[in-house]
């Protein structure tokens, strides 16, 4: 069993708080992704779990044992680095064997572990090469192999795909998913790429400025983001946000910004009652907006001017001016000819609207 528990973990560099009071429980064999923009503290958190950074306050436990004061070598974790960090003066075989030799594993067991890992990752023909003779993708596989042979309690991944080109990155994502099935191990994966987070994680931890914003499954984060930051970070293209004023209008609420106004029945949106007279952010995902007039009373109408169209082949992306705001619409029929400046009508289901108060992000 290798569950990981972070309790009130805090990291301070001088006067700068890098990680603030993180509480997180990762289950045995769970694959958790830490995601956030640069400098959000995700890599620092990972390095504290690995033992490469001291913990300023709080405790980290791996498999029920507090590891705060253990050296990295004594934590039984393996880590893949952004730039692979292969030992460049050693062959691939020696790279794989290094960790096992340090632990005085008998030679025949090392050979068996290497051949198993090489088979899983299809790197058998590369075993006698040096790292500089390998492509980026091959180096990445060797770095994964170095983790697998150790059979550790925990795999830690520090942005391992970010140095690969887009095509190879997509391929390695699939390989990582397959690897999870073959070598089920508790894993923490750090990335700034929401696609990697969504595709790989059992659960995702969204971080910003050293603070956890939300923890949940990919669908939970996509469908029920707790604040505007999470909503904008998860999903591509990013969610649209419009600042609207909420007013009470008999049984309904009226939400209005310049160039757009709509009403919502209060019985279906009771949360808005507390926001009457205030400005809130309405969030709409570009994929949830459909061109054409509303077809039911449950939909909200949008009218705007097309500013830019982006043809992707299977769909078009539109940038549409709505009053003094600009919104994006995805999933538009690629054969539809839309000139810049043309007026369009669109609709979004009221259930797909998200409401966020200003400045409600966790700090």
């Amino acid at each position: 069993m290798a569950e990981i528990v972070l309790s009130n973990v805090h990291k301070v560099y001088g006067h700068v708080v890098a990680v603030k009071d993180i509480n997180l429980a990762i289950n045995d064999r769970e694959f958790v992704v830490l995601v956030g923009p640069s400098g959000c503290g995700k890599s620092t958190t990972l390095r504290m779990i690995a033992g490469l950074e001291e913990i300023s306050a709080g405790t980290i436990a791996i498999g029920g044992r507090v590891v705060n004061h253990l050296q990295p070598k004594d934590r039984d974790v393996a880590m893949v680095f952004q730039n692979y960090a292969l030992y460049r003066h050693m062959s691939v075989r020696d790279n794989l064997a290094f960790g096992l030799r340090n632990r005085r594993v008998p030679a025949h067991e090392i050979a068996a572990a290497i051949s198993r890992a090489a088979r899983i990752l299809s790197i058998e023909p590369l075993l006698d090469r040096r790292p500089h003779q390998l492509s980026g993708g091959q180096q990445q596989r060797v770095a994964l192999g170095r983790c697998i042979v150790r059979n550790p309690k925990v795999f830690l991944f520090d942005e391992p795909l970010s140095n690969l080109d887009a095509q190879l990155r997509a391929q390695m994502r699939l390989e990582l998913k397959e690897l999870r099935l073959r070598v089920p191990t508790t894993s923490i994966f750090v990335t700034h790429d929401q696609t990697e987070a969504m595709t790989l994680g059992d659960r995702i931890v969204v971080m910003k400025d050293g603070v956890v914003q939300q923890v949940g499954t990919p669908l939970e984060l996509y469908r029920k983001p707790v604040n505007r930051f999470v909503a904008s970070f998860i999903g591509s293209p990013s969610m649209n946000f419009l600042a609207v004023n909420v007013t009470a209008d008999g049984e309904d609420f009226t939400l209005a910004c310049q160039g757009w106004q709509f009403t919502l029945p209060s019985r279906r949106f009771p949360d808005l009652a507390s926001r009457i007279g205030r400005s809130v952010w309405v969030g709409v995902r570009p994929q949830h907006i459909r061109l054409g007039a509303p077809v039911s009373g449950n939909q909200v109408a949008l009218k705007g001017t097309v500013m830019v169209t982006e043809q992707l082949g299977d769909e078009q992306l539109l940038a549409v001016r709505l009053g003094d705001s600009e919104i994006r619409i995805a999933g538009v029929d690629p054969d539809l000819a839309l000139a810049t400046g043309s007026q369009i009508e669109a609709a979004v289901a009221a259930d797909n609207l998200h409401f966020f108060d200003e400045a409600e992000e966790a700090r």
Partner: protein
Amino acid sequence: MRDVAVVQARSVGFFAALAPRGKAVFFALAAVAICLLFAFPVFWLILTSLRPGTGVYYVHRGTEFTVDNFHEVLSQDIVLRALLNSFMISTLATVLSLGVTATSGYMLSRFKGPIPNAWFSLMYIFRCVPYVAWVLPLYFVTQQLSIFDTYWGLLLPHIAVHICFFSWIMKGFFDGIDPSMEYAAMIDGCSRWGAFWRVALPSAIPGLTALAILCWLYTWNEFLFALILTAHETPILTVVMAQFVHELGMEWHLMSATAVIALVPALIVTLFGQR
């Protein structure tokens, strides 16, 4: 509308003015000239070492050549002792100073804090003091410590100079090595020291070898410290060579022969290091 032909004044470059392939020929000639500039003194030195004592001033006219100069200098006990001393001191200075330089360069590259900062400042200050200014104080210090005219009396100043100079270069080598390799080693079962010893240091071997050659040649060729800090007990080759100039005249032929002998180990070390 009137067309105005604008003729842009184009400067005709030096190489453009040369005939086709003129640029290549020019650079080839320049390379040959520079090689000659450096090779000619060595050639003249070897020529002088093969001339009898009476013929050194007429090298360009004489036809008489001999290896007697080599026999004569190699039969002198002081030259043989100086060869051995110079070799031992150069080698020891290289090994000892690189031992310190590697760790000190690694510390400067990887660690932040008051100790690396103080160490860096100290070396910086030492580097700012002109080399010549150390010699006289060192003479008194070695006298006081009773290590004047011994191996240690010459080794310690050399090591100190090398550490100050080469730690900076070593820091540059380690800066070029990705530290995540050491983190990987620490996770793979190494201590901090183990990660340095087994991963960072082997990766720095090309840089370390270049420094070793520089260090060895520097000590082998050094004259000022050797002249002031040694006497009869520990003769050093560069000083012994200079002693062929004395009150009775200048024995250029013997000096040249000794210099040619001194070239050989330097050449071997350089070629060996390059491999």
